């Protein structure tokens, strides 16, 4: 290649990286997933890093007082929206169990609405669709994967992902890596093996499967390790990062002595083969239902003066972890709220569970509660301030387990005693909380989005959407939504305007500055 060719290529790739996509007909391709244009949100996390941090700066701390409602979409049904919408080629795609809506992002009007047939699977929630080319990928309560045509919601094919009759269900937004659709499964009420399956987007055929735990019935071994939520991806290292869920039986560990690999772990898999490259266990021998499926956020930056490729997770068990994502070595383990169940941290950076705080016949007071110090709510990494910002849930609960509860499924009982919500901005190099913002009693279901103009978007326990100053957590804007916020915000640019998209109850809200500004 000569110099002029090289310059042209460099210029062309720069344009692709930052300009709005003008070639819309093909939907989502590999380049869009690697370098999402400003007018897109092509996957659950927005990009492969999971930072949920936007470069858009049209909305600023100075002008946000003028942020106004652009439109609202009402689903007219009771299920709460827990999904992150996709925005591709001016159309939003979002879900509740059994349902996908395609909505015009300019007018807020419905283009099509798909309903999966009635089924007996778990309808606890749904995180959204994945997209590749002009195809959508949608998991169902009865553990099927449906692929649809994005232009009209017609079904291309349906495949079984897991056996719902055994107790599996699916809720997650799949992750597209290359020509693979990665799907995870759920199911804690039975002793089941957890797994991630890679599926061919054209045909629905299984390409590979990675099991997180041994087959049910293996002596002295655990089951569980459900792969509840969407992972992240590093294209340079070619590693997919995923969190796994808790062991089963849940509250009783007597039939599964030892660490219970690979439950409550952050794992790095080769996406081409599904082989495990490394694993770090967040909760060895968990007995409190504390999945480690929270977003594994990928950050390149300095750690104590050295450049590092990091992976960060605020985990349900109450600890904030920073790992070297090239090899899984621990860089930092630090509590981000009250916790009383561990004896400390071992040499590998893993918490050591206190046997005296395992569920007992007369009950144990445990911090945090079963829902955990955080949960499905997406955190955000703000590189400008070096802050990992999370919707946390300081809480206490009672945990019980007795021989009569058996060794299948839940195998015990737990009861929340007290909890609240608070946004915590964690300095990632030390684990110290630089600022916090109270959200109210019981806690908030809202996730966090940050932007380069220094804004943090989230919501409180009373259903107020909030915009905070990322440097100190002060409230800059709010709007009462009238219901429970159970989703994480997204943002994109369309027609030269920056939109913030939030949801509450069964309603989707689009916010923007008035057009003349």
């Amino acid at each position, binding site marked *: 290649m000569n110099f002029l060719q090289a310059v042209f290529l460099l210029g062309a790739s720069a344009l692709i990286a930052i300009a709005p996509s003008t070639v819309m007909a093909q939907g989502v391709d590999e380049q869009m997933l690697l370098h999402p244009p400003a007018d897109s949100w092509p996957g659950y996390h927005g990009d492969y890093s999971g930072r949920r941090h936007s470069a858009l700066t049209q909305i600023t701390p100075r002008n946000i007082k003028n942020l106004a409602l652009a439109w609202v979409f009402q689903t007219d049904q009771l299920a709460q929206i827990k999904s992150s919408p996709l925005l591709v080629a001016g159309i939003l795609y979002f879900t509740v169990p059994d349902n996908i809506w395609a909505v015009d992002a300019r007018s807020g009007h419905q283009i099509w609405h798909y309903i999966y047939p009635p089924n007996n699977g778990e309808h606890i929630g749904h995180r959204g669709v994945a997209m590749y080319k002009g195809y959508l990928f949608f998991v169902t309560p009865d553990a099927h994967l449906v692929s649809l045509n994005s232009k009209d919601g017609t079904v291309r094919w349906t495949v079984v992902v897991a056996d719902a009759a055994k107790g599996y269900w699916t809720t997650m937004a799949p992750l597209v890596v290359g020509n693979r659709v990665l799907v995870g499964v759920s199911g804690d009420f039975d002793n089941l093996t957890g797994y991630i399956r890679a599926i061919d987007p054209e045909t629905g055929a299984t390409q590979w499967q990675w099991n997180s735990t041994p087959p049910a019935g293996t002596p002295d071994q655990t089951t569980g390790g459900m792969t509840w939520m969407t992972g992240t991806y590093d294209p340079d290292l070619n590693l997919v990062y995923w969190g796994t869920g808790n062991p089963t039986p849940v509250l009783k560990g007597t039939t599964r002595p030892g660490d219970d690999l690979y439950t409550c772990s952050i794992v790095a898999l080769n996406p081409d083969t599904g082989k495990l490259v490394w694993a770090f266990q967040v909760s060895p021998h968990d007995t409190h239902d504390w999945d480690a499926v929270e977003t594994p956020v990928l950050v390149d930056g300095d750690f104590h003066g050295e450049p590092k490729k990091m992976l960060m997770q605020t985990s349900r068990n109450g600890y904030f972890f920073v790992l070297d994502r090239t090899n899984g070595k621990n860089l930092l383990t630090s509590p981000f709220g009250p916790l009383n169940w561990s004896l400390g941290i071992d040499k590998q950076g893993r918490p050591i569970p206190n046997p005296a705080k395992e569920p007992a016949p*007369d009950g144990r007071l445990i*911090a945090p509660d079963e829902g955990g110090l955080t949960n499905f709510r997406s955190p955000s990494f703000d590189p400008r301030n070096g802050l990992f910002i999370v919707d946390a849930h300081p809480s206490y609960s009672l945990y019980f387990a007795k021989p009569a509860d058996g060794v299948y499924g839940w195998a015990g009982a737990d009861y929340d005693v*007290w909890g609240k919500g608070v946004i915590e901005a964690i300095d990632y190099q030390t684990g110290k909380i630089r600022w916090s913002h109270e959200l109210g009693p019981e806690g908030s279901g809202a996730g966090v989005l940050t932007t380069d103009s220094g804004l943090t978007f989230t919501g*409180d326990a009373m259903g107020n959407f909030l915009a905070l100053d990322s440097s100190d957590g002060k409230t800059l804007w709010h709007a009462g939504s009238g219901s*429970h916020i159970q989703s994480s915000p997204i943002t994109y640019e369309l027609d030269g305007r920056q939109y913030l998209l939030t949801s509450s109850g069964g309603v989707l809200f689009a916010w923007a500055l008035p057009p003349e500004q």
Partner: protein
Amino acid sequence: MNFLRLALHWNLWLAAPLIMSLAHAAAQTPPDSAPAGTAVKQGGPVVRKSYPPALVRSGRDLFRQDCSFCHGRDAGGGESGPDLTRSKLVTEDVDGDKIGVVVRHGRPDKGMPPFDRSDQQIASLAAFIHTQQSRALSRGSGGRKGVDAVDLQTGNAEAGKQYFEGMGGCSGCHSPTGDLAGIASRYRGLELEEQMLYPRHAKSRVTVKLSLGQTITGNLAYLDEFTVGLIDSTGVYRSWRTSDVQYKVDTAVDAHVELFRKYTDADIHNLMAYLETFR
């Protein structure tokens, strides 16, 4: 700023009296205190209403889809939802008259959403839940999850008295012959222990000072960053923008929260044993 919430959901105002009474009705009591009419007695002959199998099956399928995540597939309790087979509300329910209300309104203060279900669907859910309750109670001790009052009785009442009057600091606000007299007759077992650790339904007093100096005191009814509301002495709801007033919430209940990090589990069981003497 402290946030106390007595009305989570925007429409809780309309439902507040209903939800308060439902919350009380759902208190978990030992089976031998269930009303004779619904007739489930532990140890003795079990009299149970039997439901058409087809109705129970369709209730089971509906339960599996909407309810089982929180209440367990067998209605014995699951992620964050109580064991319905031990629920007093279920025991007192007749063909869904009480269950239907909870299903359709949810329990916003406890995180249960509402479900839009027809009368026929409610009837099928009730048939399934009652069948599960009958099964659980007639099976004896095997296979039950959930907590009986006797499970919690591993403490020492004298040690609990020492804690109450000493390190726990409880006697600073409470008295066994005063506000807590008869508490163990009003609450039993797990519910007594939960209230002891954190009294969810305790009302907080709030004093609001207006810009011209007038102060108004009442029971806190709503609080977020932007609005404070109270029920005044005449029973009327009043609210103000937090930016327009100064307000002070009586945070006595926070003393319970302060104790969480100080308790040993033995302290909790001893305190329970002591409280159980306040009949």
